[in-house]
């Protein structure tokens, strides 16, 4: 018994001792909590926020963007676009070095752009790039086979990390290169430790090429897959920042924490759209009137205000409202059940029909809840909806990429420029069975193809906006997709943080100006 008593006493002491350990000197460390698990840390061959957040700290890129969508110098101190739009010259800073001490040269920039072109899933980013010439160590000239208005945005940290040629140029496949898990970049933070599925620890780069930055000594990305546990960690101060938070309950809950601030800024570039996709090849959905009937029967305001408690915004078209190309005048499809029933009758479905809705496994509020709302709402116009849950992403992806679906809910990002994030799901030459996030709706409209192809090479912003305006009006009529809402991404952060990430890329941007205040 004595031994047991001693053991219990020691255990209690241990617990109390740890509780009494004073908080670590927080001045230099920022702990970012995330539910997302990155495959690796190289954003040149991998898209997605899980990789982009650490990748943009480790790797620098030619250009960065401010909160007004204006390009700013980064590794390129200046740049010139030729009059014909077929050549972009990047003038690089001469004091940038990789974390291993080797200088960043135009060879690295050229190698990175071509590697990204070959391996990144967003083919449209650098598809028009023919070559990258390197007349000297600090000048890179990107040669294009057609004007490419999205190029500068594609040179952002989240999309075009400059990777070291002396490491990645060894002939191994960049997608599975061992250095992806132990990357060396030239960004403001250096990788200290990467524990897959657990944590990413990045220390300040003392030789960062921008004087006086970064402000923080250390950034730790802590992966906490369970959101409830993550919220407690935020409330308890175990984590300092939680970006990409999208649940209304979570948002309302953290709003009550006195030491936290919440912001919706920082997601203009991502442009996360929650949508209901139609398989336009399905005999039941090939008639546009059926798709329009579903749109007229669905109440976006109810979804955003009631189901999402007012934290998300209605989304009416393929381009998010925060984009410079958004057109406010597109069809809204305000709820009109009579019109919906009439359209069903005109399409030959006066007696109704059965439909199945799939949804990507993810936040229940954004997917399952809306799918169940659709089930009850569409019943009013004679559509019996079966909600088909998928146990995991592979099952859902298999159904949608195999075109084995009728209706499917999903979240798709705009990724800054329509060329990067929007074209892929509307161009008819991107109907590719077996490929997820292609044009899985099998939507084909020659006019839309022509408009998108024209917008992809139009360098005049005004004319480009006009082309996208026409595109938005057409697809809003054709409805290959019914856009529901923008994901209510919020960032929760400790109020003492100075310069929290509120630019267009949020935390997918170098956090070199973030610091702790008093």
């Amino acid at each position, binding site marked *: 018994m004595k031994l047991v008593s001693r053991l219990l006493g020691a255990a209690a002491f241990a617990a109390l001792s740890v509780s009494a350990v004073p908080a670590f000197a927080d001045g230099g460390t920022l702990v970012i909590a995330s539910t997302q698990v990155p495959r690796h840390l190289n954003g040149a061959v991998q898209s997605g926020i899980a990789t982009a957040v650490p990748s943009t700290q480790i790797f620098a890129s030619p250009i960065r963007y401010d909160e007004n969508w204006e390009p700013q110098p980064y590794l390129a101190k200046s740049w010139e676009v030729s009059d014909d739009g077929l050549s972009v010259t990047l003038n690089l800073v001469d004091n940038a070095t990789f974390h291993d001490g080797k200088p960043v040269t135009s060879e690295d920039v050229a190698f990175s752009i071509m590697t990204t072109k070959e391996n990144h899933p967003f083919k449209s980013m650098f598809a028009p790039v023919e070559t990258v010439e390197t007349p000297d160590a600090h000048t890179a000239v990107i040669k294009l086979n057609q004007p490419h208005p999205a190029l500068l945005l594609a040179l952002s940290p989240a999309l075009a990390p400059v990777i070291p040629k002396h490491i990645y140029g060894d002939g191994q496949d960049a997608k599975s290169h061992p250095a992806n898990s132990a990357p060396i970049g030239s960004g403001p933070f250096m990788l200290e*430790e990467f524990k897959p599925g657990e944590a990413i620890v990045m220390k300040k780069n003392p030789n960062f090429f921008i004087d006086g930055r970064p402000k923080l000594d250390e950034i730790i990305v802590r992966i906490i897959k369970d959101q409830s546990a993550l919220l407690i960690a935020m409330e308890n101060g175990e984590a300092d920042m939680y970006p990409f938070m999208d649940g209304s309950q979570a948002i309302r809950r953290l709003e009550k924490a006195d030491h936290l601030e919440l912001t919706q800024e920082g997601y203009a570039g991502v442009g996360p759209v929650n949508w209901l996709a139609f398989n336009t090849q399905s005999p039941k959905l090939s008639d546009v009137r059926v798709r329009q009937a579903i749109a007229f029967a669905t109440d976006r305001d109810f979804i955003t205000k009631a189901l999402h408690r007012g934290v998300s915004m209605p989304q009416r078209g393929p381009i998010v409202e925060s984009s410079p190309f958004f057109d406010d005048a597109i069809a809204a499809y305000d709820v009109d059940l009579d019109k919906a029933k009439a359209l069903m009758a005109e399409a030959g479905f006066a007696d109704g029909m059965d439909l199945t809705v799939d949804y990507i496994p993810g936040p229940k509020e954004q997917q399952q809840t809306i799918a169940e709302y659709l089930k009850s709402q569409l019943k009013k116009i004679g559509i019996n909806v079966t909600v088909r849950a998928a146990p995991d992403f*592979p099952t859902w992806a*298999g159904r949608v990429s195999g075109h084995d679906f009728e209706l499917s809910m999903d979240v798709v990002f705009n990724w800054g420029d329509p060329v990067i994030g929007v074209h892929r799901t509307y161009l008819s030459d991107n109907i590719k069975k077996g490929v997820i996030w292609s044009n899985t709706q099998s939507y084909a409209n020659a006019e839309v193809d022509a408009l998108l192809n024209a917008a992809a090479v139009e360098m005049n912003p005004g004319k480009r906006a006009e082309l996208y305006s026409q595109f938005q009006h057409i697809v809003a009529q054709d409805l290959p997709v019914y856009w529901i809402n923008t994901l209510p991404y919020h960032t929760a952060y400790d109020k003492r943080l100075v310069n929290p990430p509120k630019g267009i890329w949020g935390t997918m941007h170098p956090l070199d100006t973030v610091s702790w205040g008093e």
Partner: protein
Amino acid sequence: MNAPYLFKRLGYGLLLMLGVVVLNFFLIRLAPGDPAVVIAGEMGGATEEMLESIREEYGLNKPVLTQLGIYVGNIAQGDLGESYFFNQPVSKLIGERIYPTVLLVLSALIMAIVLGVFLGVLAARKPNGPMSAFVAVFSTIGYAVPVFWTGIMLIILFASVWPIFPVEGMLSVKLRDAGIIVRSLDILHHLALPAFTLAIIYLAQYARLSRASMLEVLGSDYVRTARAKGASERTVLFKHALRNAALPILTVAGLQFGSLISGALLVETVFNWPGMGTLAFDAILRRDYPTIMGVLFIASGIVVVANLLTDLSYRLADPRLRGKS
């Protein structure tokens, strides 16, 4: 104990692990979802060419039996393959995760045995007393409640309402650079809730088992003799009775190692404990075949070894079993 017996048991163990490999290989492939599409999805999409290149790279375009042959051949050489998702050798991933899992399982096992036996002995003292009733009720609840529910309740209670324990993980990230004593204490602090959660179900079993075993032993002649010669109740209980009642408890402890490992996989997921369970969870969600197979292979190996050791130690402890095969 003789060497042929040991080799025979080892042989059975290896055959069992081979069976586990083959069975898992086919079971995993029955699940819907093409790993190449999943990898492409995780990358953010892909072209058809990229999908083909992924299948080529991971050998997914080969006939299934060829894939099995390659996999078994690689395992025989100690190569567990490369994770589709994490892009790292599976052996490295498991190597980093095995220690937290073993720490969790052993802590829970020790906690369950010590507390369970203690409660069982107390209950056996007065079979109709309140402690006995408590053990019966506690055991029923312990058996009935799913381990993940217990974990979530403990998190709500001790990490949120009364935040005296950390909510998840194994080590506070801000204490990474602290001294070994502070880090060890921090690990203990993090270990408390998951270990207790995992221990509860087994604690209940040990309490019931030791209560029954003690009741049987307490009725035996030598206990009556011990009491007759004036030994204190504590000496009778813990010195005379418990020693003899402990043998079946230790046997069960060894045999339960397998279910403890599977319980640990669930508990790890709830508490984000960085062990093989969370690794398996991530891998299953992403159809990361090599990682799932690797975790199952190593977990089955641990169970085979634990059972073997239990068997051998039991034969050492009980001379009547020596010489029998």
